[in-house]
């Protein structure tokens, strides 16, 4: 079963017409917005804005010097008895895991939540070689059973109700129909507990890589990431290399922002700071420790000075929750695993602007994402840059002469005030008032063509004023006022 998304208009319409889904997404994101607002309010976190600036600066510094910090990180991981593995793409990651599993005779992998492994379809790649890899975050586990991809980067099963979960569990686990959420959770706990105790390898993601310590930092609420990284004999952390921060002492800044921006928690339940395999004298923990550093297009993003900032993202999900577009179309109508505003910014950069050219335009540019982003990524600005790239790309592809002509004509009119004025008064004569006073519902049929038709079908236009500003101006000057 393919988890790839399609983006036909019919799917959008389906989402928009699904009243239950609309309500679920609206309520869930609304609640997350509320919790974040309370957690960053000036009376509880007066230094909030300062923290954002610091976080931005630390990320900027680390990524501007990333090669240095990658090597520093590697040096420390190695010194602590771990190993760093660089991978160009998903197939290299899968090859590495498969080879290691074969060498160690590993049969079962437990996984904790990681958008990076979603990005490279790691589970599917491993399953293809008969290596079972079980998601252990409750939401991710449900989605894995249902063969769906995450709906939201923080709350992956945000779109499912307890009844959906009951059906999935009955069908896939063969359990009685159970609709009480607490009991559903305990069913998953029971199944997954056995997996944790049997697994040979635990694969986690990383929220941060700490260069001066060679550490992987993971934040979570359930405890599944702790189990994944503590119970099996081998721990593999798979992370995009942009997760780097320079120093362990930079962590407080990010930890204070991440939980609050994501779910309104001052700190998530578990924050694990992991640096290497179990050491001499320590009682438990993995015997082998690997950090897989993934490129998968990140070096391309790094090369663009302005867009480099899209790699600062700490995946808090706040921009999704606050986005009027995400809240309507949901997480499954975006072309890739990353949805919402940050998805709209990074997908075209990873996939090429030509692949889903509409994506950077699917935004009202309201700026809410920028306002709430804990690392101050200027998402609206990046979307505008991408729009211009898409336009240039299209022009190269198929000329785009009509659009260019229209804008050239527009520019010419704008430079000639007399003609502009003439067109203005013509417009006023052409557009009679519609049902709503002061607003136009329809335009003369000769104008209702092409892109203009599509544009107008969703919008009401204010009726052109009967007298223009310039006319007012002239008559007032004559009147001596």
């Amino acid at each position, binding site marked *: 079963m393919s988890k790839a998304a399609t983006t036909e208009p019919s799917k959008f319409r389906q989402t928009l017409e699904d009243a239950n889904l609309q309500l679920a997404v609206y309520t869930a994101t609304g*609640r997350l917005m509320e919790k974040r607002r309370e957690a960053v309010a000036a009376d509880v976190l007066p230094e909030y804005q300062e923290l954002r600036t610091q976080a931005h*600066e*630390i990320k900027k*510094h680390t990524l*501007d*010097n*990333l*090669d*240095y*910090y*990658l*090597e520093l990180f590697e040096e*420390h991981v190695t010194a*602590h008895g771990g190993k760093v593995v*660089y991978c*160009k793409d998903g197939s*290299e990651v899968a090859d590495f895991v498969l080879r290691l599993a074969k060498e160690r005779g590993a049969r079962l992998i437990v996984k904790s939540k990681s958008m990076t492994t979603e990005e490279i379809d790691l589970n599917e790649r491993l399953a293809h070689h008969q290596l079972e890899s079980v998601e252990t975050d*409750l*939401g991710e586990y*449900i989605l894995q059973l249902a063969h769906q991809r995450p709906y939201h980067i923080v709350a992956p099963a*945000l779109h499912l109700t*307890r009844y959906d979960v009951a059906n999935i569990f009955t069908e896939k686990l063969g359990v009685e129909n159970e609709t009480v*959420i607490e009991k559903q*959770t305990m069913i998953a*706990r029971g199944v*997954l*507990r056995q997996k944790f*105790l049997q697994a040979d390898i635990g694969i986690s993601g990383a929220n941060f890589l700490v260069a*001066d*310590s060679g550490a992987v930092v993971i934040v979570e*609420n*359930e*405890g599944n990431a*702790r189990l994944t990284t*503590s119970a099996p004999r081998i721990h593999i952390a798979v992370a995009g290399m942009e997760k780097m921060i*320079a120093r*362990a*002492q*930079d962590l*407080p800044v990010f930890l204070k922002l991440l939980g609050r921006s994501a779910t309104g928690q*001052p700190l998530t*339940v*578990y*924050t*694990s*700071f*992991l*640096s290497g*395999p179990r*050491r001499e004298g*320590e*009682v*438990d*923990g993995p015997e082998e*420790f690997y950090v897989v550093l993934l*490129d998968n297009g990140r*070096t*391309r993003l*790094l*090369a663009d000075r302005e867009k480099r900032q899209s790699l600062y993202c700490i995946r808090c999900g706040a921009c999704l929750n606050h986005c009027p577009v995400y809240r309507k179309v949901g997480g499954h109508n975006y072309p890739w695993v990353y949805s919402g505003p940050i998805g709209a910014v990074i997908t075209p950069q990873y996939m090429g602007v030509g692949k889903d050219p509409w994506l950077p335009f699917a935004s009202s540019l309201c700026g809410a994402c920028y306002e709430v982003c804990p690392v101050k990524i200027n998402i609206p600005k990046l979307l505008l840059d991408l729009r211009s790239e898409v336009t240039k790309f299209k022009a190269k592809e198929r000329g785009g002469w009509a659009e260019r002509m229209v804008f050239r004509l527009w520019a010419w009119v704008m430079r000639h005030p007399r003609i502009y004025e003439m067109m203005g008064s013509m417009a006023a004569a052409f557009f009679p008032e519609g049902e709503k006073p002061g607003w136009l519902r329809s335009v003369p049929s000769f104008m209702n063509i092409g892109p203009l038709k599509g544009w107008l079908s969703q919008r009401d236009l204010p009726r052109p004023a009967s007298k223009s500003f310039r006319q007012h101006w002239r008559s007032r000057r004559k009147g001596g006022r």
Partner: protein
Amino acid sequence: MPREKILHKVRTALGRSSGQPPAAPPPVRLRIPDVPLDARIESFICALNKLNGKTCVAHSPQEVLDYAAQLCEGKRVVASNSPVLRECGIVELPNVRSNYTDADKLREACAAADIGITSADYALGDTGSLVIIASPREARLISLLPPVHLAIVPRSRILTGLDELFTLLPNPAEQTSSMVLITGPSRTADIEQILVRGVHGPREIHVVVL
């Protein structure tokens, strides 16, 4: 070699050359507010209670023992090798198993236990967090596998918050392979955003401040 290739790509993208030192990093800004011990304890307790953690302030090792004995009655219990637990007499309680040095045996014991008892190296007053550093004294799984976790925290170990922790431990990797911050019982809200405790880790957390 993918390593050299990727590092080369990174350097090209950044316009840097091999071995070039980084620009000066932004200064570290850790701030430790001046909060007296009593206030730190109170804030810790208040924050943890808000997360549904149970707390108790003990004035003697005997009081700690009393709390532990009551909680552990009739239960299977695994305790860490921390000297604090020994000093309080917890390891001598009849149903408490301790002194594990073998990972597999410890794991088995924890998987079957009802309660895990540990100390904490530090606690954070502002968030109600426990900080546990893996060492011969503290394992990882005792605070994780059993459905109930009891931690004993010496009061002098209660810090103001993260900034103080990372001032004291500028680089935790120097002394341990694992440092964990535990802030309340394990929880999830993945189905309909309804809060459920104890999904994978303990559903109950008790902290006795000594």
